[in-house]
């Protein structure tokens, strides 16, 4: 058992090696690394592998059970697809960051303890940030910085929770935690930030559209789904998760509907779909948890496909990613267009992947008699189909032809998209032979998505969503996509930080000026002036009345004054008078000091 190479280390070693290779060898190794990882995954049976003793702790790098293995499967699969997609156009930085990111994601889901989990959890952020920075634009630099700052805060919250948890229980094991005490709340929030819970979510739609076209495939697959794994392991059946998920599924749709940047539309629809999974974890029944796990698998597949097709459009059109810039591309990029349509259909259409997983969650809500949740899931199913499924392909490949004539996507990208599209269809058509075999929790009865009534219900829901879309579009009621941005919770740290900067700028620099005027221009200058002409002034103070009393005219006094000042300037005062004046000056200084 232990002679299997840990899959995460194959990816991590690959990450270190690939940037040093060139040409065809680099391409072969890039594909070989995820394939070898998948090979290692296939050899893994349920059990505990690779336990390393560190100080007093036993770190477990390989806890293989059904829950972790389904995640390893999809993470490895998507890292192969992303590598294939990136093989020609990606930079060395992207190759390194992508494999590092994938290695950490696999490492995180295989971690058997909280310390190992945390190490890989934090390294995920490194991979993601590098993939944003690899875009090398000023906006991506800003987004990367915000990503780092938000995830550092999240990481610290998680770390403090883990430290408190270890202090309280004396164990680093990562199993069900449940919300009970302070440490568990901190861990819960730490997981929630990566899961893009409402108010903690803004990093996702801020950063994903700024990443490279290939990098975003990794990002869409790993960070939020890793958090779903952690919640599924640590907090299954936590009731508050149901309502957090409901909020995610609702609010994200408004943003997805209004967003102009296509990858931002997809980013908000990720939050929507992760909301489905969070609801499933919150419900906590075997059907719901299995539905959440299955939905992770299916969602990663179709969202990768959508991101890949839009990425190909961005690449071929020289960076155009906004609805207001695109349209009518089906003539130029028909194959990419078909793959985008398959990705859109796979969101929830029968015979495609999303249908077989999402319907488990809807059924679980119905069986638990959570009526509001059930209705929200149906509303969100129709809504996400409208916002992402119809909007993305329609405004990119159809709609108004803006006369953009470009070449079809490169072959490697088409093959990557083709494999993903096939997987979407295969999982959708044969769920019992594919994902249902990998489900982590045992159920009394096997779930059957393909009943006549269920298929008809879903087709009704979707066809009438299409009808609503078409009628609103024809009547001009569908909101025109504007060249605009949408304010989100990141406004708090983006705008308020500017205001904070302004306040600090005005406040601290103002204080600086006042202090400068008082001490440097005021007191110091005064002391300098007194030191340089204090003796002359004090002499005048004494001599002027003496001259006036001795009967000199005003003119003579002025002449005497000028002479006295000149004498001091030249330092030629008579010693007798000089010593008297020094005495007077010192006396005045002493009196001033005493007073």
């Amino acid at each position, binding site marked *: 058992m232990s002679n299997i190479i840990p899959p995460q280390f194959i990816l991590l070693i690959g990450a270190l090696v690939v940037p040093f290779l060139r040409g065809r060898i680099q391409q072969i190794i890039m594909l070989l690394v995820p394939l070898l990882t998948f090979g290692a995954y296939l050899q893994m049976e349920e059990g505990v592998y690779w336990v390393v003793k560190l100080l007093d702790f036993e770190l477990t790098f390989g806890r293989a059970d059904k829950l972790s293995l389904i995640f390893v499967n999809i993470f490895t699969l998507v890292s192969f697809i992303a590598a294939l997609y990136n093989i020609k156009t990606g930079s060395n930085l992207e190759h390194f960051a992508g494999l590092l990111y994938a290695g950490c994601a696999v490492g995180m889901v295989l971690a058997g303890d909280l310390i190992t989990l945390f190490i890989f959890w934090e390294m995920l952020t490194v991979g993601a940030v590098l993939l944003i920075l690899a875009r090398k634009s000023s906006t991506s630099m800003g987004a990367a910085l915000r990503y780092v700052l938000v995830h550092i805060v999240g990481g610290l919250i998680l770390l403090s929770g883990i430290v408190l948890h270890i202090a309280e229980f004396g164990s680093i094991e990562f199993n069900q935690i449940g919300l009970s005490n302070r440490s568990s709340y901190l861990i819960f929030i730490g997981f929630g930030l990566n899961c893009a819970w409402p108010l903690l979510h803004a990093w996702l739609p801020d950063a994903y559209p700024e990443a490279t076209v290939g990098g975003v495939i990794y990002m869409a697959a790993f960070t939020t789904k890793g958090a779903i794994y952690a919640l599924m392991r640590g907090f299954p059946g936590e009731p508050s998760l149901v309502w957090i998920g409901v909020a995610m599924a609702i609010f994200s749709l408004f*943003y997805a509907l209004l967003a102009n940047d296509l990858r931002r539309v997809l980013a908000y629809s990720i939050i929507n779909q992760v909301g489905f999974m969070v609801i499933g974890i919150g419900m906590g029944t075997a059907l719901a948890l299995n539905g959440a796990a299955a939905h992770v698998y299916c969602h990663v597949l179709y969202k990768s496909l959508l991101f890949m097709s839009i990425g190909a459009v961005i690449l071929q059109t020289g960076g155009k990613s906004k609805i207001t810039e695109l349209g009518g591309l089906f003539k130029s990029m028909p194959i990419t267009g078909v793959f985008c349509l398959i990705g859109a259909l796979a969101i929830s259409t029968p015979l495609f992947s999303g249908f077989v997983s999402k319907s488990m969650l809807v059924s679980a809500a119905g069986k638990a008699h959570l009526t509001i949740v059930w209705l929200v899931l149906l509303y969100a199913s129709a809504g996400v189909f409208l916002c992402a499924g119809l909007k993305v392909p329609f405004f990119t490949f159809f709609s108004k032809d803006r006369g953009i004539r470009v070449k079809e996507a490169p072959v490697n990208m088409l093959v990557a998209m083709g494999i993903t599209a096939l997987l979407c269809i295969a999982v959708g058509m044969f769920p019992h032979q594919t994902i249902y075999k990998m489900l982590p929790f045992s159920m009394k009865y096997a779930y059957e998505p393909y009943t006549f009534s269920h298929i*008809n219900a879903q087709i009704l829901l979707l066809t009438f969503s299409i009808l609503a879309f078409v009628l609103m579009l024809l009547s001009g009621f569908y909101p025109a996509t504007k*060249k605009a941005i949408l304010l989100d919770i990141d406004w708090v740290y983006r705008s308020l930080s500017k205001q904070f900067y302004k306040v600090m700028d005005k406040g601290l620099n103002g204080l600086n000026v006042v202090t400068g005027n008082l001490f440097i221009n005021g007191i110091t200058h005064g002391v300098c002036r007194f030191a340089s002409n204090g003796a002359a002034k004090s002499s005048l103070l004494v001599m002027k009345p003496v001259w006036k009393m001795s009967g000199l005219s005003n003119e003579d006094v002025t002449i005497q004054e000028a002479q006295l000042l000149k004498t001091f300037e030249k330092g030629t005062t008579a010693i007798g008078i000089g010593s008297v004046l020094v005495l007077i000056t010192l006396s005045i200084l002493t009196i001033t000091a005493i007073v």
Partner: protein
Amino acid sequence: MGSSNQTPASKGVKILLAALFIICGAVFLVDFLFMLESFDKHAIYKWENWPGFYGVLGFVSCFLLVLVSKFIIAPLIQREENFYE
């Protein structure tokens, strides 16, 4: 602020529209089959048995989503592209 929504009205589009209306009508009619005893809807809630329930739900959901987005959410959150610059 440019508008990108266009309503293409070529022959192909008209055929597609007609196909959509026919499909919607057909699916809606199929739902009436479940009023027969030999077809079971496995309904959990009684309103699932109303013919066309899911269709109405899908249509109304999409309509409400657009309505709220357009008139309530957009004025609140939509800003010029250079807002943060």
